[in-house]
């Protein structure tokens, strides 16, 4: 059956709540309303208000209470209504959750999922457009996933719910209703920490994740048609743990690497990818590693401003051409 990215997330929640009675959902407007984006639609009717819980506007409480329940064997899936609001729960995530097992000498677990609807390109402006994954990818004890397809959105959420560690699940708002896929009828899970080669190629590699995967694929199709370039597109899917083997394999194969993400350039996760390639695949490179990311500013509201700041397929096409010509 063909489903949207949003429906895929909703299906994963339904299926996991049916499978395991310890799974419950908590957040702002997730129950009666079914979520600001309708991601949790239908859960209240199916599972009742013990397991689908509307909360006050209290992000630190939402994550903190999730941690408390998780410690005692529950599997909470908590929602930040917009990923931007995760900053209000930052301490609970990076200090309470991420260090929990460590400071309990390995004698505790925190099976918590924090869903963060993220990303720009929807005129959301400064506080409804952010990509905050790089705040978390440097925190040991956390896992970070960034699905780009409906299949991964479903499979990675199921994996995150079953994982015994805190997982930050970045879902891209622009993808909610803009992509549709045929999903298998049966049960499937996407393992955390495994990248996927979306398209094989010979001339150069794009390493990307989340909101820029489809833009990269569009760009690859354009340069194949117009320039005869063969571009490999690697979708990381998980950022922590990171599939370093997939990064190095594609870098060694094509010798030219373009890293693309929607988060801004400086301090973005692309710097880590570039460093890994430079440290471990230097001898295979035919060109410097290039990065294409959001401009080092905030994500503005007005159309020309937002388009100027965020990556898109045209900008990726230009970057591919420039790198190919090096």
């Amino acid at each position, binding site marked *: 059956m063909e489903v949207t990215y949003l429906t895929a997330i909703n299906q994963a929640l339904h299926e996991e709540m049916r499978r395991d009675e310890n799974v419950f959902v908590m957040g702002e407007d997730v129950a009666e309303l079914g979520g600001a984006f309708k991601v949790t639609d239908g859960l209240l009717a199916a599972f009742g208000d013990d397991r689908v819980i509307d909360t006050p506007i209290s992000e630190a409480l939402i994550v903190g209470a999730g941690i408390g329940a998780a410690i005692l064997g529950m599997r909470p899936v908590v929602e930040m209504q917009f990923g931007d609001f995760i900053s209000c729960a930052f*301490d*609970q995530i990076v200090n309470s959750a991420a260090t929990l097992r460590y400071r*309990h*000498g390995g004698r505790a*677990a925190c099976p918590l999922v924090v869903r963060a609807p993220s990303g720009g390109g929807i005129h959301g402006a400064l506080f409804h457009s952010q990509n905050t994954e790089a705040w978390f990818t440097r925190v040991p004890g956390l896992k970070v996933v960034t699905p780009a397809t409906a299949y991964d959105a479903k499979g990675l959420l199921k994996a995150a719910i079953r994982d015994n560690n805190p997982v930050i699940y970045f879902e891209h708002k622009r993808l909610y209703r803009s992509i549709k896929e045929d999903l298998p009828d049966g049960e499937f899970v996407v393992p955390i920490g495994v990248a996927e080669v979306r398209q094989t190629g010979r001339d150069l590699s794009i390493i990307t994740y989340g909101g820029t995967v489809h833009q990269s694929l569009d760009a690859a199709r354009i340069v194949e048609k117009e320039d005869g370039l063969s571009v490999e597109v690697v979708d990381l899917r998980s950022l922590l743990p990171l599939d370093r083997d997939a990064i190095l394999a594609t870098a060694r194969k094509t010798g030219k690497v373009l890293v693309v993400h929607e988060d801004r350039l400086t301090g973005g996760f692309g710097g880590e990818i570039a460093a890994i390639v430079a440290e471990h695949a230097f001898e295979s490179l035919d060109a410097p590693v290039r990065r294409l990311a959001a401009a080092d500013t905030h994500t503005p509201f007005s159309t020309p401003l937002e388009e100027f700041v965020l990556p898109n397929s045209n900008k990726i096409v230009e970057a591919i051409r420039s790198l190919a010509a090096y």
Partner: protein
Amino acid sequence: MAESESAAATLSPEASARMEFELHLYYQMKLIRAFEERVSRLHRQNKILGGVYSGAGQEAIVTGICSPLREGDFVAPLHRDLGVFLMMGVDAGRLMAQLMGKESGLSRGKDSFLHGGDLEHGIFGSTSMLGSSLPIAVGAALKFQIKREKQVAVAFFGEGASSRGDVHEAMNFAGVRKLPVIFVCENNRFAYSTPLEKQMAIEDVASRAEGYGFKGHVVSGNDLLAVVQLSERIVAKTREGGGPALIECKTYRFRGHSEHDPALYRDKEELVEWESRDPIPGYEFYLEKRGHDVRHLREQIDERTRKVVQEAVDFAENDRLPEAREALEDLYAPPGVPGSNNSNNGKS
């Protein structure tokens, strides 16, 4: 106990059990004091690295609050609540090993002092972000409510932490869901060096409870009997579905914020006044009124606590330090049912 035989001779079985309980509380309070005094000494001898935060003067609070708790309850102590660990049955040797950064410590050398929790005894290891454990205790209470379990969660915090947003968010949600959680404020009048009047414009933290839809209670935190009586009543009520409560224990920090702090910012007169309200002699006076030979009792208990503390120190000093590479362990829980393999080192 031999010392109580004469006092117990004419008592009913219930009254006799109560007397044993009251003597046990005395032992617990004395053990906490003895343990902490030894810790302060070890710190001066450089045998305990890092910060040491004494709860001296506040022993009646942890002893009294924890006394009606049962297996399966959840406690989030604050950084000064070493007594919670002893009250909940954590082995004194492992606790001392924790303070010395040894392998048998609760966090296996990973974190200092009281951040190492012990979930087998229902103790959450709080972080240094004071007040952040209140949302977590609320989450534990939420689990008890969802699963219809007759358990309670208890979160200790200082009046200092009561200024943090986490505390407001936690209490508000607990009130909305009528969760089985008890918030215990140890109001010792100082947040490090900052006195009460610079922290809040009201006298009682407990008065805030009304704003969250539940009751706030004020009790003298230096009066063990008063704390026990209130705690027994509130814990029983909350356990039976009565919803959250806030207990504010008025007390005073006998020592500095930590052992390196001489606390010169305090008024000497105030300290003397509060030292005269030391919970231990106060409780001894009660036991005396109950017919115990307190001098004899004190000698016996001192002997017992000395032995327990010495054994703990011996155990911890002989315990090995962790291997350097263990710094990379215990980060991630492996797949499977959490807690089913507690000895796992977290290599995943």
